[in-house]
């Protein structure tokens, strides 16, 4: 089947280009450091040590997972077009949708593997430090699943950019800007608006929806446990209540689908 053939080839290329190794090392390194460092200040204060680790890792993942997703995907179409390999692929009897899905499957596997290794290390280290009996693994599983959704959304965004521009250089520039906007500037902008609004209608009605509309923020909200630890993560969390878990989930699930759909629309228009 064509989709599997494309996915197989992309996985091979990702392995050869060290993308698999890079992603795994990045995720592994950061999660291990945060798991070990995260446990230190809480000591035996009664907070579930895994919750502490999940909170730290969430904060990190908001930056890292979109970045890995975009890095894996920005070259997918523009790069092939630039190298001249796309035209030949398109003369084979398979649709552009199949090419896109094949690439997505491969990159999604790379991302899932990296996240699984990172969170797996967290689980192992926490069990090793404390005992498994007292730990609740639900937050960790939730973090894993939502990380996949977040990564998938940014893979889709990367393909969209890659289909819209002709040069990989331009594509890489644009995805870095998108990354910066989504994980940093968007929140800063909202905070600025909050301060300016000073508790008016914007804060109560529009703001929660704007917040959850950003997949990175939806991811942050859904994984930040209510209560003690979350206060570390700025006051934004309190506002998350208005949109609710459902809103956050819908945002995280819709983003990958919408992004991939538009990437497909854009890819259909590419003339290699």
């Amino acid at each position, binding site marked *: 089947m064509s989709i599997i053939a494309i996915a197989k080839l992309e996985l091979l290329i990702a392995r050869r280009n060290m993308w698999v190794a890079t992603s795994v090392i990045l995720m592994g390194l950061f999660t291990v450091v945060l798991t070990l460092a995260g446990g230190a200040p809480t000591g035996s204060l009664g907070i579930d040590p895994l919750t502490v680790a999940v909170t730290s890792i969430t904060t990190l993942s908001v930056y890292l997972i979109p970045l890995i997703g975009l890095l894996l995907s920005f070259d997918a179409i523009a790069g092939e077009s630039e190298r001249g390999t796309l035209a*030949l692929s398109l003369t084979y*009897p398979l649709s552009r949708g199949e090419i896109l899905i094949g690439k997505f499957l491969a990159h999604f596997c790379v991302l899932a593997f990296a996240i699984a290794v990172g969170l797996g290390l967290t689980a192992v280290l926490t069990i090793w430090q404390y005992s498994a009996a007292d730990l609740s693994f639900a937050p960790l599983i939730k973090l894993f699943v939502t990380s996949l959704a977040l990564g998938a959304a940014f893979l889709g965004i990367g393909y969209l950019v890659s289909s819209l521009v002709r040069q990989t250089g331009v594509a890489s520039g644009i995805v870095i800007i998108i990354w910066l906007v989504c994980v940093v500037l968007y929140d800063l902008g909202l905070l600025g608006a909050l301060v300016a609004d000073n508790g008016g209608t914007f804060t109560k009605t529009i703001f929660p929806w704007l917040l959850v509309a950003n997949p990175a923020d939806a991811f942050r909200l859904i994984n930040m446990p209510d209560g003690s630890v979350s206060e570390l993560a700025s006051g934004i969390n309190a506002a998350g209540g208005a949109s609710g878990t459902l809103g956050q989930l819908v945002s995280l699930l819709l983003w990958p689908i919408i992004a991939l759909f538009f990437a497909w629309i854009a890819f259909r228009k590419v003339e290699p």
Partner: protein
Amino acid sequence: MTTLNIENVSKKYGTLETVKGVSLSLQAGERVALLGHNGAGKTTLMRMILGLTPITSGRIEVLGTEAGSRRARSAIGFLPESVAFHGALSGREQLQHFARLKSVSMKRADDLLDRVGLSDAADRKIRTYSKGMRQRIGLAQALLGQPKLALLDEPTSGLDPISRHEFYDIVADLANSGSAVLLSSHALTELEARTDRIAIMSKGNLLADSSLSELRHSAQLPIQVHVTTSEADADRIAAELGGARVNGRSITLTCQQNDKIAMLGQIASLGAVIKDVDVMPASLEDLYRHYSISKEGA
């Protein structure tokens, strides 16, 4: 059934018309050379046959189905002009990938690596390949699944003379097994004995489309006859035959096809003073120049 049928096809980019009302058809087993300068519209025409570039007007059918459809694409083997592959893959991996896309067995893909003479380098990364080796991988993938129509865009660029020879052997095999082959080139001399029909394109127009001998006939280009004689007799014989003395002992004569036998008889009647005679019909280069200059203005 006609393997490839191009009917009055045009391509416009804004106001620029790169292909102008071209009609051409290929039957199974035919080898057709598409000749033209860079920018004549050869590559655009091929891209339209493949469905990579939308057709502005006209119609292209491959085995009775619309060009670019999945069925049409599965019947075509294509070798692009400057073929490129992912450098991180080995030749075998790349070819096996294409074989999977065409539902061809891995065994068959390996056989093709042998056929194009790449079995020794098959497991090396493509980034270490020379241009000629990449061209061979390109040819191998175009041969996957015994295509009913092979489109080869400048297939011999980057190949050394021996490889070119092998390449044309492969093309002949392909045509003998029933594939139609359309290949574009501007390396004219090598095509002379290697194709059944020649189509000449210039500035988007199809100027000629027939066999080499028919083209020669209709172009009415003069035949050149080189006569070698002794130094002492050269001037006298040049005057007698009405030719021009080229160097010490050679004379060049020109005549039309119809007068050739009479001319040769005249030369033969001169007897022992003639050392040698060479008859040279108009070359493909001459023909190509003739068609692309004489009809361009029209």
